[in-house]
């Protein structure tokens, strides 16, 4: 299963043109490398401050654009990653191992990504047996696979 790890913004990360401390960058790099080496990191990106972004507000048929920056740093997002792990607990364990990358307090939110299994119907034993038998018929390499 996949989880989106959402790193919330801080006053620091919201500062325009502010680059993170090099030592912190190195620590983050090492941590991300660890995630990669463990085969759990699918994607990773950091976000520019909200001053470079915008919001589109939906109300009925109207769409109103509001340019950044936005206040309330803790409700903004500074970056995200996608982890593929076995459980929420595993995602939590990985996140806890990350370095603290802010001077102030901040939060990292972990949310499960919807996947096929979440929609899959629950099949009866008989149906499963049918699939199993059918699977046995499938050659390893089929034409038009």
């Amino acid at each position: 299963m996949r989880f989106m790890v959402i790193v919330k913004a801080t006053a620091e990360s919201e500062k325009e043109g502010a680059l993170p401390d090099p030592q912190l960058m190195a620590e983050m790099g090492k941590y991300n490398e660890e995630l990669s080496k463990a085969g759990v990191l699918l994607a990773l990106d950091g976000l520019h401050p909200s001053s470079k972004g915008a919001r589109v507000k939906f109300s009925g048929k109207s769409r109103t654009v509001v340019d950044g920056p936005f206040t309330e740093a803790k409700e903004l997002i500074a970056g995200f990653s996608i982890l593929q792990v076995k459980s929420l607990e595993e995602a939590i364990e990985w996140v806890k191992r990350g370095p603290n990358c802010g001077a102030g307090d901040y939060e990292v939110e972990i949310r499960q990504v919807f996947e096929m299994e979440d929609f899959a119907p629950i099949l009866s034993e008989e149906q499963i047996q049918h699939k199993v038998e059918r699977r046995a018929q499938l050659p390893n390499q089929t034409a038009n696979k």
Partner: protein
Amino acid sequence: MSATDPHQAEHQALHRTIEAVWRIESARVIAGLTRLTRDVGLAEDLAQEALLAALEQWPQSGVPDNPAAWLTATAKRRAIDLFRRNAVAQRKHEELGRELEALEQTSPDLDSTLDNTIGDDLLRLVFIACDPILPTESRAALTLRLLGGLTTDEIARAFLTTEPAIAQRIVRAKRTLADKHIPFEVPRGLEFAARLSSVLEVIYLIFNEGYSATTGDDLMRPTLCEDALRLGRILAELTPAEPEVHGLVALMEIQASRIRARITSTGELVLLFDQNRTQWDQLLIHRGLNAIERAHKIDTTRGPYLLQAEIAACHARARTPSETDWQRIVILYTELAQVIPSPVIELNRAVAVSMAHGPQAGLTLVDALASEPSLARYHLLPSVRADLLYKLGRHPEARTEFERAAALTRNIRERGLLLTRAASCETDPTHSSEK
């Protein structure tokens, strides 16, 4: 006590946390212990004992700050105790026990020492789990157990067998490794390539156990694809200079990208050309294409996994089936058939040729395979042939071939499809040329 008992709920949550820690740490703990004990079976037993100790103690003490170090230290203490007990009888172990103690005393920061060599130890663990002395299914079970951190029960469910059967398979495999004194090392020189291909075979077998079963049945099986992908990605970081490892990862990423388009809501298989391509997972496709790039940067020669990955990539890049670069697929299949000669690959190549150069060109190649003994009972041979004949307007012959294919397949749904196609040949006798 009810299931909603807060104390019990808390206990269950902690149990899941310990399972997660185990999933993350077990391979490294087992790898480190194997290096110390030179016995992968013993190392795994010790690690399991450490896990049991964690399950006993952490509910009282809380999860330690560095759970991996805790598990390793606990397992190591047990190893030392064990060696001490055996010391009188077995001098070799006594020495090893002393070495262990000495190591512990001279290097208080054993964990960082472990950390530096952990990549090497993990790779050694991969090779020992996939040692060709073991039957393939044992290699797969052992790899999932030692490197994937799966429980015996999970492996049993993944391979649709019973827990005792898997447990026995693993015990037997560990005994074989001990009896034959299989060394804990990364093979060198010429042996490396052969042994690596055994590792890749095991990972791809695990993937296919999940993938060919991904027809919407039990939910455990897409998970098996994820396990295989995780193992592949780990291996790619352990052996970054091996193009075939990236090739396998690319192949699995791209195939996995189609998982959700590959079955209907009722669990029926959807063939590649009928899949809704907007459902393909672009993140996995992107990762697959990147892995192909990594392989290309290392070497210009292409092994079988990389070639298959590139074929998969041709489909992944096409937004609609008609945009498929069949010319390129033909080239790739031609190269693949040279690297691993196989009638099944020739049949695939014939299909690609028919798409690139028309049904007659494909049919000529298919006809050349007619006498191939290994394809005699293979329903896709008459099925492909029937399709090409149909496209050439040779409907009576197409009908015979569709019927032959239907008789050969034991897959009920596929048989139905083939018989429908056979019938369509009959209902349209005036139709003489469809290109």
